[in-house]
């Protein structure tokens, strides 16, 4: 145990001595966490809108006002005809075109129904889908208002209609930050954890210092532990700073207990650092580690449910995703953050992370040999 203490002392000395490293490890994640949630936003704003109004009635004006007042749309132009509107879409100046037909108001009052032509630019799939969705929500709202003002209440019971009133549990107002801030935080911790754990051992290989260590009686378990613990501590510090930033800048804070959150962080780091270590036992140079880590980080980012939903992945991807500690941690984080889940609620994810971590660490220790 005594040798572990000296190994740790050495590692921390080296860590604090490398000024550039500490700066990038601390300041870069902080800046990212402050800026990225604002940029990486799913809720679509500023959809460019063009309108062709053949009617010029008070109804059509009301409809236009309603659409533009929603905040999602920005009125780009009023076009004279359909061709002009399509031209705007072709030139990429408009995302969506609404065409209000002639005698819209008249028809609506007399016949009780009218059709509106909506054309959506679907080059950016997500944006198009959301724009269409927003617009139909606004239109149906408009519809309901019309009924209230203009249509005589039926003398008899109207035909039963099921109206849906969704309630968003755990994130009542669909606050996007509640979703993205924990995601980005986990993303950052993953990157830092894997990279640093992987680089550290390889650096000793590249500098040749491992040669001198290998002839000493130090037990390899201690040596590896001495390598991992500093980054364990560092990751916890960065995570804590990240939580504070989430609270200060985005008012995102866990509903659940901090204890639960940190227990799952411990389990996560155990698995994560083990994985980084495993990468380093397989590479001889920092360049090799870099390529390996980059490859895996990409896979982790895309497949662990940080930004996309695991449930909508094909079966093989779901199974693969279940092997990533990141998938479990992000799930657990969101459960604690939003739902206030307790340790027993997230026990499946905890055990999964510990299990995966045990595999990675054992594998790494077996693969690191003091002798070749």
């Amino acid at each position, binding site marked *: 145990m*005594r040798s572990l203490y*000296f190994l740790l002392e050495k590692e921390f000395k*080296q860590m604090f001595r490398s000024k550039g490293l500490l700066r990038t490890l601390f300041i870069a994640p902080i800046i990212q966490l402050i800026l990225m949630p604002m940029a990486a936003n799913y809720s679509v704003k500023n959809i460019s809108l063009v309108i062709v109004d053949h009617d010029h009635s008070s109804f059509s004006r009301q409809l236009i006002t309603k659409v533009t007042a929603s905040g999602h749309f920005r009125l780009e132009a009023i076009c004279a005809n359909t061709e002009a509107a399509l031209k705007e879409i072709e030139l990429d100046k408009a995302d969506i075109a609404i065409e209000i037909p002639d005698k819209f108001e008249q028809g609506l009052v007399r016949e009780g129904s009218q059709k509106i032509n909506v054309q959506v630019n679907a080059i950016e799939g997500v944006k198009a889908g959301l724009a269409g969705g927003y617009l139909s929500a606004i239109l149906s709202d408009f519809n309901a208002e019309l009924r209230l003002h203009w249509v005589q209440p039926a003398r008899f019971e109207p035909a039963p209609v099921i109206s849906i009133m969704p309630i968003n549990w755990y994130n009542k107002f669909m606050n996007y930050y509640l979703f993205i801030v924990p995601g980005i935080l986990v993303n950052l911790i993953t990157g830092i954890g894997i990279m640093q754990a992987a680089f550290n051992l390889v650096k000793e290989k590249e500098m040749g210092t491992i040669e001198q260590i290998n*002839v*000493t009686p130090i037990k390899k378990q201690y040596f590896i532990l001495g390598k991992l613990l500093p980054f364990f501590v560092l990751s916890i510090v960065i995570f804590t700073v990240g939580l504070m930033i989430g609270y200060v800048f985005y008012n995102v804070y866990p509903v659940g207990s901090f204890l639960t959150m940190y227990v799952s962080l411990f389990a996560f780091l155990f698995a994560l650092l083990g994985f980084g270590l495993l990468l380093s036992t397989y590479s001889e140079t920092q360049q090799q580690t870099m390529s390996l880590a980059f490859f895996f980080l990409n896979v982790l980012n895309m497949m662990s449910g940080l930004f996309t939903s695991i449930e909508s992945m094909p079966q093989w991807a779901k199974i693969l995703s279940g092997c990533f500690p990141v998938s479990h941690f992000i799930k657990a984080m969101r459960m604690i953050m939003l739902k206030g889940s307790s340790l027993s609620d997230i026990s499946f994810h905890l055990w999964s992370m510990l299990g995966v971590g045990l595999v990675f660490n054992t594998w790494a220790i077996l693969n690191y040999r003091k*002798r070749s």
Partner: protein
Amino acid sequence: MITVQHLIKTYNKGTVKAVNDISFEVKDGELFGLIGPDGAGKSSIFRMLTTLLLPDSGIATVNGYDIVNDFQNIRNHIGYMPGRFSLYQDLTIEENLEFFATVFNTSIEENYDLIKDIYVQIEPFKDRRTGKLSGGMKQKLALCCALIHKPDVLFLDEPTTGVDVVSRREFWDMLKKLKNQGLTILVSTPYMDEAGLCDRIALLQNGQILSIDTPAHIVASFGDILYSLSSPKMYKLLVTMRAYDNMNSCFAFGDSLHLTLKDNSKKDELYSYLKKSDFGEIEINQIMPTIEDCFIKLLKEN
């Protein structure tokens, strides 16, 4: 004490024989040198004896401990200085030394007398980071770190490669002192002129030992009369001498040629042979062979 019996190490699935059936013995308190050019297998032998590399076959012991089975014991009793500088460049001199002392469960104070002579030379810079030291100082620190746990056997893999002439001298003086304190030292070097400073040497080439003996015996076993030739027209002289039919061997050796003859009774003939061409002033002396001459001769015989 080190014993090595029929040690074999191959690389690339047996195609490269780095160490090919080598046997030798280093006695307690001996300064033993492995002498050979780059690629002779010196580092492989070191890495096997320091338990960093597993041999393909053969037996070797260090202080009675088997290098394969008793490697833990060996690691406690040896000091190893790898060919490449391998201390932490971002730690200071003192921190490096302290680290390696604590790793072996000891302290600088405990074994200070062993490293004192060497350490005082670098002590004024003890707060300087190792990466910013000169080559000679790095070498001294590496030696201190290898000594700090009071090892019985010291392994020094090419300690003087890349070090200036003065520092090399100093370094060998330090080794002499350590030897006098009872340490067994195995040292390797590609410099033949350092061979004479060892108690005994093994000349290595292509993973095989050409000869093991004291430097004096190796020089004595040269068994030929050696001439040194020099003239202002060295290249022409070399070409001419190599064409001479009584020539046994002829090599450029610094600013002279070293020459042996097939038949030494025909020495006078040499003069008349040389007079045929115009070399300007030729100087011919009979000289004592050096280790390098012996090495070249052994290479030729093998």
